[in-house]
C-alpha cells in the first residue's frame, strides 16, 4: 500500500483522493516515511516540515469529507525548492548567509500551492543561490542522484529532481535561470518545465538573475508536470514582468499528446560534437518516435547560439552581483563580526559577513558581475552580451518560422560523478550549453526522459523548446514521446532505477 502511494503519479493520487479512496494524510505520511527511510542517503531536503504537511493534509481531508469541491491537486503533497519564500519555514537558498532566516511572507507560487490544497513536505536542496549544475555548491552538502548515489542529481535544482526520482514526493517546484529545472530532470529521468518568462510569478523567488529566472513545475510524468504548471502559472500583479494573459492550455495538450502534422526542428548547433554517444543515440531514437507519431522533422540553424554561454556568463553575474548586494547582515540572516575589532563599522560587519556567508562560486560570480558592470567595461561586457541576447532571440524567431517546436538533448552528458567538475568551473558551465539559449530569449522549454545511455545505464533527457506563450506545445510533444517510449519500455523509466532502501541499508 505505502509503496503504491509513493510510486503513483500525482494524477492518479488526485483521482483517488477525489474519489475518497485514500486520504491526503495517508499519502502525505507515506511520503514522509519514505523520506525518513531514504533521505539520509539522497539528501534531497534541507528542511522537512512533517507537522505542517500533515496539518495541511488533515485540513484538505476535512474539507473534502464535508463535501467541498476541491482543486484537482488538493491533498497531493509537494516539495518546494528552497529558493521560494515560505512564511514560517526556513528559506536558505542553499546559503550560509540565510541560515536561520524565516521569511515573513509566502512567495506567490507557494501561496498558490497552499490555495490549491497541496501539503508542503519541505524545502529542497540547491546550489547556493541557484549557481551550479550539481548541488555541490550548496552550503549544506550535495544531494545525490538516486540512479547512482556517487553521481550528481543535476543543479541547481538537484534537491527537487532527486526528491522525485527517489519517490519522496510526486511533485516539486523548481526555478530555471540557465537550465536548473531541465538539466536536473534530464540526469534523474524526471520531467521539468521552464515556462515562458513571465508565465509564473517571480514574487518571493529569491533572485539570481532577474531577467533570466523562471519558476516551473517538476514531476515524474508529463501530465503531472502540466497539472502543477496550471497551479503555479498565471498573472500576478506583484511581479511587473508577469504576463497578463491566460495560461496556455498545458493540461489539455498533455492529455491529447497529439503531434500529428507538427514540425519538429532539430537545432544543428545543439547536436553532434560535444554530446556523449549514448545521449546522441537516445536523442535520435526519440526523434524517430515523434516521426512515427506523425510529426515532420526539419533542420534549423541558430548560428548565434555559440555565443550564448559567453553572453549568459556576463548577464547572469551582472544581475546577480546587484541582487545579492542586499545580503549585508543589517536586517536578516547571518551576521559575523570581524575578528579582533571591538568596534567594527557597518561596512566591516558587511564585509566579514559576506566573506563568511557566501561560498566560492557565489563570490566568483559577484566579482565577475561587479567587474562587467564597471564604468569603462559596461559597453564591452554587459552591453555586448545584451546584443548577443537579441541575436539569439532573432535566431529563435527565424527557427520558429519553419518549426513549431525545437528539440535537442537537454544536457551533453549523463550525470557525472560528484567532485568531477567541482574544480573546473568552465566544465561545469558547459553542462548548460543546450538549456541557456531559452533563458536568454525567454522562450519555454521542457526536459522529458528519452531513455538510458547504453554506455553507463544513466538517464538521458530530451529538450523541447517552443515559442513564447506556446508552452502547451511542449506538453503535446513531451506526452506523445512519453507514451511511445513507455509503451516500448513496458514501464516508466524510473521503474528501472535502483532500490534505494536496499542501497541505504547496505550503506548503513
Amino acid at each position, binding site marked *: 500500500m505505502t509503496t503504491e502511494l509513493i510510486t503513483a503519479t500525482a494524477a492518479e493520487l488526485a483521482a483517488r483522493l477525489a474519489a475518497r479512496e485514500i486520504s491526503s494524510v495517508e499519502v502525505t505520511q507515506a511520503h514522509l516515511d519514505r523520506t525518513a527511510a531514504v533521505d539520509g542517503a539522497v539528501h534531497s531536503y534541507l528542511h522537512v516540515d512533517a507537522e505542517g504537511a500533515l496539518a495541511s493534509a488533515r485540513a484538505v481531508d476535512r474539507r473534502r469529507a464535508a463535501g467541498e469541491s476541491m482543486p484537482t491537486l488538493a491533498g497531493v503533497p509537494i516539495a518546494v525548492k528552497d529558493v521560494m519564500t515560505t512564511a514560517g519555514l526556513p528559506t536558505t537558498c542553499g546559503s550560509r548567509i540565510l541560515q536561520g532566516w524565516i521569511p515573513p511572507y509566502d512567495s506567490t507560487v507557494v501561496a498558490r500551492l497552499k490555495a490549491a490544497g497541496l501539503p508542503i513536505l519541505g524545502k529542497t536542496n540547491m546550489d547556493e543561490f541557484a549557481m551550479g549544475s550539481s548541488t555541490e555548491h550548496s552550503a549544506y552538502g550535495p544531494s545525490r542522484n538516486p540512479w547512482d548515489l556517487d553521481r550528481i542529481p543535476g543543479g541547481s535544482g538537484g534537491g527537487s529532481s532527486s526528491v522525485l526520482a527517489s519517490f519522496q514526493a510526486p511533485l516539486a517546484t523548481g526555478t530555471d535561470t540557465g537550465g536548473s529545472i531541465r538539466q536536473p530532470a534530464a540526469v534523474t529521468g524526471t520531467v521539468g518545465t521552464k515556462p515562458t518568462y513571465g508565465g509564473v510569478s517571480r514574487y518571493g523567488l529569491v533572485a539570481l538573475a532577474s531577467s533570466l529566472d523562471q519558476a516551473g513545475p517538476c514531476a515524474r510524468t508529463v501530465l503531472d508536470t502540466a497539472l502543477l504548471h496550471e497551479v503555479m502559472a498565471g498573472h500576478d500583479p506583484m511581479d511587473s514582468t508577469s504576463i497578463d494573459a491566460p495560461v496556455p492550455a498545458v493540461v489539455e495538450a498533455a492529455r491529447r499528446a497529439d503531434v500529428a502534422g507538427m514540425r519538429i526542428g532539430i537545432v544543428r548547433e545543439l547536436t553532434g560534437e560535444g554530446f556523449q554517444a549514448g545521449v546522441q543515440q537516445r536523442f535520435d531514437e526519440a526523434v524517430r518516435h515523434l516521426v512515427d507519431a506523425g510529426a515532420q522533422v526539419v533542420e534549423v540553424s541558430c548560428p548565434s547560439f555559440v555565443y550564448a554561454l559567453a553572453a549568459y556568463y556576463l548577464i547572469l553575474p551582472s544581475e546577480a552581483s546587484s541582487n545579492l548586494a542586499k545580503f549585508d547582515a*543589517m536586517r536578516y540572516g547571518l551576521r559575523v563580526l570581524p575578528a579582533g575589532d571591538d568596534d567594527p563599522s557597518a561596512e566591516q560587519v558587511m564585509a566579514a559577513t559576506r566573506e563568511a556567508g557566501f561560498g566560492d562560486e557565489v563570490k566568483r560570480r559577484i566579482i565577475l558581475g561587479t567587474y562587467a558592470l564597471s564604468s569603462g567595461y559596461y559597453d564591452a561586457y554587459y552591453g555586448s552580451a545584451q546584443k548577443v541576447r537579441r541575436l539569439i532571440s532573432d535566431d529563435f524567431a527565424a527557427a520558429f518560422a519553419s518549426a513549431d517546436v525545437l528539440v535537442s538533448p537537454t544536457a551533453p552528458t549523463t550525470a557525472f560523478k560528484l567532485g568531477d567538475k567541482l574544480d573546473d568551473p568552465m566544465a561545469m558551465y558547459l553542462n548548460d550549453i543546450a538549456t541557456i539559449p531559452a533563458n536568454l530569449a525567454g522562450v519555454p522549454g521542457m526536459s522529458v526522459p528519452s531513455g538510458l545511455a547504453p554506455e553507463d545505464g544513466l538517464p538521458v533527457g530530451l529538450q523541447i523548446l517552443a515559442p513564447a506563450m506556446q508552452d502547451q506545445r511542449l506538453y503535446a510533444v513531451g506526452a506523445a514521446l512519453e507514451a511511445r517510449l513507455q509503451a516500448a519500455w513496458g514501464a516508466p523509466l524510473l521503474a528501472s532505477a535502483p532500490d534505494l532502501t536496499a542501497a541505504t541499508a547496505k550503506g548503513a
Partner: protein
Amino acid sequence: MTQATTEATVPYEEALAAYDPVLGLEVHVELNTATKMFCGCATTFGAQPNSQVCPVCLGLPGALPVVNEKGVESAIRIGLALNCEIAPWCRFARKNYFYPDMPKNFQTSQYDEPIAFDGHLDVELDDGTTYRVLIERAHMEEDTGKSTHVGGATGRIHGATHSLVDYNRAGIPLIEIVTKPMVGAGERAPEIARAYVATLRDLLAALGVSDVRMEQGSMRCDVNLSLMPTGADRFGTRSETKNVNSLRSVERAVRFEIQRHAAILASGGSVTQETRHWHEDTGITTSGREKSDAEDYRYFPEPDLVPIAPAADWVERLRESLPEPPAARRRRLQGEWGYADLEMRDVVNAGLLDLIEETVAAGASPAGARKWWSGEIARRANADGRDVPAYAAAPRRDPRPCGGVGVVGHQRPTQ
C-alpha cells in the same frame, strides 16, 4: 575628530571681481502620493519608526517592485510644468552602492533615460528681472531609509555609539530635478539660486504633487558650485554641498562656497572635488567625503521593472490639466486687484495670495481684503509667533465654533 577646521574665505566682492561662479542645483522632491513608489506602504510623515514597511521596501529576499502609476503621473506633470520633453519610452536603472539605510543596497532610479528632459523655468528676481534656468532633466527615484546616529556630539556617524535606521522613508517616491550649469549669473548667483528654489517650490505646490516642506525634508537641495577666472569659458572643479534645506540657506551656501573657492584659487591652490555639509548655525560648509572618479555606481537597467511608455494622449491630457503657472497667476491677480508692485510683493511674501483670492471671491474689495489680512490679522498672528496662513487655517479645520482666534477664519472681512 568631529569638527572640521574653518576654512579661509575672501570677501564676497573680492571673489566676484576675479571669478565667475558656475552654479548647478539638484533638487529632490518627495511626492505626496498616498503609497510608496514601488509598494503599497503608506507615506505618512512622522509615523512610528518602521511601521510603514513591507517585504518590498525592506528589500527582503524575493520581493519585487511594482511602479506607482500616480508617481509616474506626478513626474510627467512636473516635467511638463518645467517645459521639458517627456520621454516616450524610458526605464528605471539600479544605482549600486552599499549603505545600511538602503535596503537593497541599490537605489532604483533613472540613469540615462530620464522621464523628463531639456526644459526651463523662468525665475523672477526681486527687481523684476527674469532669469531663465535651463533644466537638464527630472527623473524618478526612491528615497532611502533614515539613519539616526546616537551617542555622538554632532549627530553625525563619527563618534556615535550606535545608529538607528527607520525604513518608513525607504521607497517614498522622489523626483530629482537637475539644472544645467548656470553661467553668467555673476554676483547675483546666490539670489538666483534662492529664487529658483522658491519658484520651483511654488510651482510644485501649485501642481499639488508634493508638500514641499524643506524643514521636513520633503524638498531638499544640493548646491553644485565652481568658479572660473572672469572671462574664462572652462569650468573649474566643483563642490557639491548636500542637503541645504531652507531658501535662506541656499542663498548663504552659494555665497559661502563662492568665498571659499575664491580663497583657495587666489592662494594658488586647487579645489577638491567633494561633497560638503552645510551648517545652518555657523553658515559654513565642511568637507564630507571626497567624490572622485573612483565612485562607480555600476548602473544598469532595472530588470525587475518593465519600461515606462506613457501614451501620447495621456501626456497631452496631463498637459492640458496643468494649473496656471504661479508667476502668471500673480501677474493676473495683480492686474485684477490693481495692487502696486510693492503691495503685491508683500502679499506674496507673506503667503496671502490664496486667502485674499478667497476673500475677494466672497465679495470683499481687493484693497479691503489686503488691508484685513496684512494689517490686523498679520499683527495678531505675528504676536502669536505664526504666519498668517497657518493662523487662519487652524480654526477652519476646527468644526466647533469658538471664541478668540476661532473667529478669525470665519469672520467676513470689513469692506
